[in-house]
């Protein structure tokens, strides 16, 4: 197991050459356990994915004149609440890591559940915002179009400046996917197999209740994919997640929060229409 690096001879000051004993591993290069270094490297690579998307968005924003400004005060208020949800989820996450380091399992679970609740609120609010914008005509090819969307207030924006809808939906969909994966990740860490029926129920109820002309009628299948992956992980390698796992999951969650700190001002605040 990779975490055995913490028990390396070098850590305990044994002389060089005494490396033949069983269980000896190379000392960690970065002074951190391997799972944490692995997550940092993944986040570094993922930041380049979001960086490229944000650069492309900003480039289009500067290049396209006039740039659409479809976000009224209601949209900005909604996005501000979403931002507050993510920031608060980061606080509950860090308190969860704090509790895990103290060995307080009950409060670790409670803080992780609170983090999941904030994350779920973010996803729901974002879904409502998407539904509202699509209903007003802001759409891209391939999206189901609800009745009235073709003559909506933003239909002309979709026709005249298609890069706005493309970059908006592309960027926010990528982020929403990361938040969804984060909620599932925290569910696996905090509840383990108990989380699976909840996830399955949310997927089924969502699929049955969301109308077929709503894009989330299809998007909610991400939860089904998450259910399959989580089931494979939990049944093939069942384990009791420890403070290391909580800290690593926290790194991922904070990264999701971090990315939104750029998306919110660039996408929403740079496209406001406040009268």
């Amino acid at each position: 197991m990779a975490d055995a690096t913490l028990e390396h001879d070098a850590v305990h000051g044994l002389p060089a050459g005494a490396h033949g004993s069983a269980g000896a591993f190379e000392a960690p290069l970065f002074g951190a356990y391997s799972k944490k270094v692995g997550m940092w490297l993944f986040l570094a690579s993922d930041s380049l994915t979001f960086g490229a998307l944000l650069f492309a968005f900003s480039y289009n924003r500067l290049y396209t004149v006039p740039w659409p400004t479809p976000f009224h005060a209601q949209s900005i208020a909604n996005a501000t609440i979403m931002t507050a949800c993510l920031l608060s989820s980061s606080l509950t996450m860090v308190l969860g890591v704090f509790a895990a380091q103290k060995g307080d399992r009950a409060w670790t679970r409670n803080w992780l559940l609170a983090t999941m609740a904030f994350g779920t609120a973010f996803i729901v609010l974002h879904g409502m915002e998407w539904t509202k914008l699509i209903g007003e005509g802001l759409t891209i090819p391939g999206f189901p179009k609800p009745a009235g969307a073709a003559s909506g207030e933003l239909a002309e924006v979709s026709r005249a400046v298609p890069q706005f809808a493309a970059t908006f939906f592309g960027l926010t969909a990528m982020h929403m996917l990361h938040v969804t994966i984060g909620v599932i990740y925290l569910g696996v860490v905090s509840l383990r197999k108990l989380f699976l029926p909840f996830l399955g129920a949310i997927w089924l109820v969502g699929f049955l209740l969301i109308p077929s002309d709503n894009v989330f009628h299809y998007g909610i299948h991400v939860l089904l994919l998450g259910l399959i992956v989580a089931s494979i992980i939990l049944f093939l390698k069942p384990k009791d997640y420890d403070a290391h796992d909580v800290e690593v999951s926290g790194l991922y969650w904070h990264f999701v929060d971090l990315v939104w700190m750029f998306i919110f001002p660039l996408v929403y605040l740079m496209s406001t229409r406040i009268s």
Partner: protein
Amino acid sequence: MHDIAKHDDSKGQYFWVWGALLILTAIEVVLGYKQVFSPVRMLEVLLLLSVIKSALIIGYFMHLKFETALMRWMITLSVVTCFVIMYFFFFPDADRVLTIGVK
């Protein structure tokens, strides 16, 4: 050995960081509502505030501030270098459009 980041037994600093992040967000929203700057200047100001917010999140919530110097520099330098390269790929042309008179 730097096992789990055991750097401070106080939860208070996390609440301070959370409060600072909320205040910076409120400043951003006010700037968006007031629209006191031109779009290009607004982009610069909002990006600056976002960088400050991300530094707080990375440093405190993600505990990078409390990792070893090698880890801090390896992560920061590699990512920043890639973003600088991206900048030189993307922005000269957008800047050309701005300098020929489009505002």
